[in-house]
């Protein structure tokens, strides 16, 4: 049984459709991310579920109960906001206990629960501090504890990490996942950061212009994009116009291996996608020839930008220990035939990344 079910949600703002019949369901204890560029409707979807906005069509079900008309205050959902959502006049402990206080729970029980929650988010010794005495990361931990203290039916996270430093972001993101697993509450997480979405989700919904472009496990989203938008939005890919040629593809006069060409009719024009980590650098005669334009050191890996004759540029990411080429050098590129993705030319129109 699913904990949350959004059924063909529709939302229009001043004549502009921001959500077009979006349906989504979350299994029990499942962590689902809504990923997309700004303006894709991910935050609107979250706010409809939270009850801060009313849909123009569709329903929201929680544990099978229709809550579409229920006000936000009565939905019993825990929500963590982008930032600055803690009540400045209350200590960490009072913030966490607020939801229980509103529910009329006894002072002792409330304090105990607040302390438990603060221990859970690793802030046990900071419970008497006020928000302005806490760092950004600590404030978001308190906000998480506060959202969980009310034993919510569902946890909603609205870009909770976007205001934090890179290091804190990664650390807190893993911790959110750990705590969410420990408690077993289903979570809906909005982010524009694909690494974030891919690394902590059970499933990711990539959104584009008010629709879910693709919904699937992180690996599937990354490895098997089903639309041009997802292919272009998630991760980096080199993209070429290609033509199918009996189980291979033809790019700029070269016939190249691609296992997925088998599913397409010969002569069909397609988009050909290749991830940087799938590109192997070989001698010019052993692959598609090109010239190394630049070389970027990333620490464990090194990325080469290679210009191919008549076909555009491709990125190749290789372990730094194996990165021997220098700019100006002519190399050949090749790849595992199973690696490239092929998408039809008449797929959904590409969206502008915001």
């Amino acid at each position, binding site marked *: 049984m699913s904990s949350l079910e959004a059924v063909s949600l529709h939302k229009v703002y001043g004549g502009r459709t921001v959500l077009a019949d979006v349906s989504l369901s979350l299994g029990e204890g499942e962590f689902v991310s809504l990923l997309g560029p700004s303006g894709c409707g991910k935050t609107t979807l979250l706010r409809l579920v*939270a009850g*801060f906005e009313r849909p123009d069509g569709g329903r929201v079900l929680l544990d099978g109960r229709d809550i579409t008309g229920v006000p*936000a205050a009565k939905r*019993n959902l825990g929500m963590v906001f982008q930032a600055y*959502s803690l*009540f400045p*006049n209350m200590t960490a402990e009072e913030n966490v206990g607020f939801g229980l206080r*509103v529910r009329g729970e006894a002072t002792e029980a409330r304090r105990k629960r607040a302390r438990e929650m603060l221990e859970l988010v690793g802030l046990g010794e900071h419970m008497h501090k006020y928000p302005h005495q806490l760092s950004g990361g600590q404030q978001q931990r308190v906000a998480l504890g506060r959202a969980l203290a009310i034993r919510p039916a569902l946890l909603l996270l609205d870009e909770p990490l976007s205001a934090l430093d890179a290091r804190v972001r990664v650390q807190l993101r893993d911790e959110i996942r750990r705590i969410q697993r420990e408690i077993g509450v289903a979570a809906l997480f909005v982010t524009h950061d694909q690494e974030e979405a891919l690394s902590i989700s059970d499933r990711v919904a990539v959104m584009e212009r008010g629709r879910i472009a693709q919904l699937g496990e992180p690996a599937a989203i990354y490895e098997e994009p089903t639309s041009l938008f997802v292919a272009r939005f998630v991760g980096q890919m080199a993209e070429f116009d290609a033509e199918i040629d009996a189980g291979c593809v033809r790019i700029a006069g070269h016939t190249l291996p691609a296992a997925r060409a088998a599913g397409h009719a010969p002569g069909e024009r397609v988009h050909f996608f290749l991830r940087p980590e799938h590109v192997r650098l070989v001698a010019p005669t052993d692959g598609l020839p090109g010239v190394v334009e630049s070389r970027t050191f990333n620490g464990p890996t090194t990325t080469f930008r290679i210009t191919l004759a008549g076909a555009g540029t491709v990125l190749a990411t290789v372990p730094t220990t194996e990165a021997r080429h220098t700019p100006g050098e002519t190399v050949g590129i090749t790849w595992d035939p199973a690696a490239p993705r092929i998408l039809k030319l008449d797929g959904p129109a590409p969206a502008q990344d915001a």
Partner: protein
Amino acid sequence: MKWLWAPLGAYFALPLVATAVMSLWQGRQGYGFHAYAELIHTPEMWNSLLLSARLAFETIVAGLAILVPAVFWMNLRVPRLRPVFDFVSVLPLVVPAISLVAGITAIYTGPDWFVGTANFLVVPYVLLALPYTYRALDVGMRALDLRTLTEAAQSLGASWPTMILRVLVPNLITALLGAALLTMTIVIGEFTFASILLFNTFAVYINHIGSTSATRAAALSLLAFLITWLAMLGVALGGRRAAR
């Protein structure tokens, strides 16, 4: 620019000093606190001061009860109405007091305890205090992330009244205090309305004393100044405490 301080200081200090000296003058007996002693034993003085204090309290309560929800709602839901609010809030500064009082007496009718007593003054006083109360509240609310705070409170199950009392008001204490003290100074010093409507408030009493006893008028003026000054000090201290 340092030389400016001397004339500026004199400009502000001299009238005060002169008033103080005047309030202490006892004719042939030299200087003393005779005027003050007399004032303290004048029941009319106490009655007028108490009336003004009561009106100040009523004005503060009525003004805040109207403006806190209104400014909250404007900031949260209809920020595009801000120019309208700004415009309306300065109207009392633009419209002359005499037209206000004429208009209000013509328009307002009601039970005798309201229209027939000094309580009626609360209506124009709320209007007079509007520019200051509105500014103080608006600045206070703009400093908060109202939308996030209200949504956080809502998602935790708080009703609107709970949210206003438990979250909004505690975070606006400085603004509320500032608004209240400014309102108090305005009401304590207001003369036109009370005089025209024939109520014996503190300011009216000062005026009355001025035409009968010069030394007592000077003493009373200093007293009024002290009250105003203490209120201002309260605003400043409240602001400093909140800034910390």
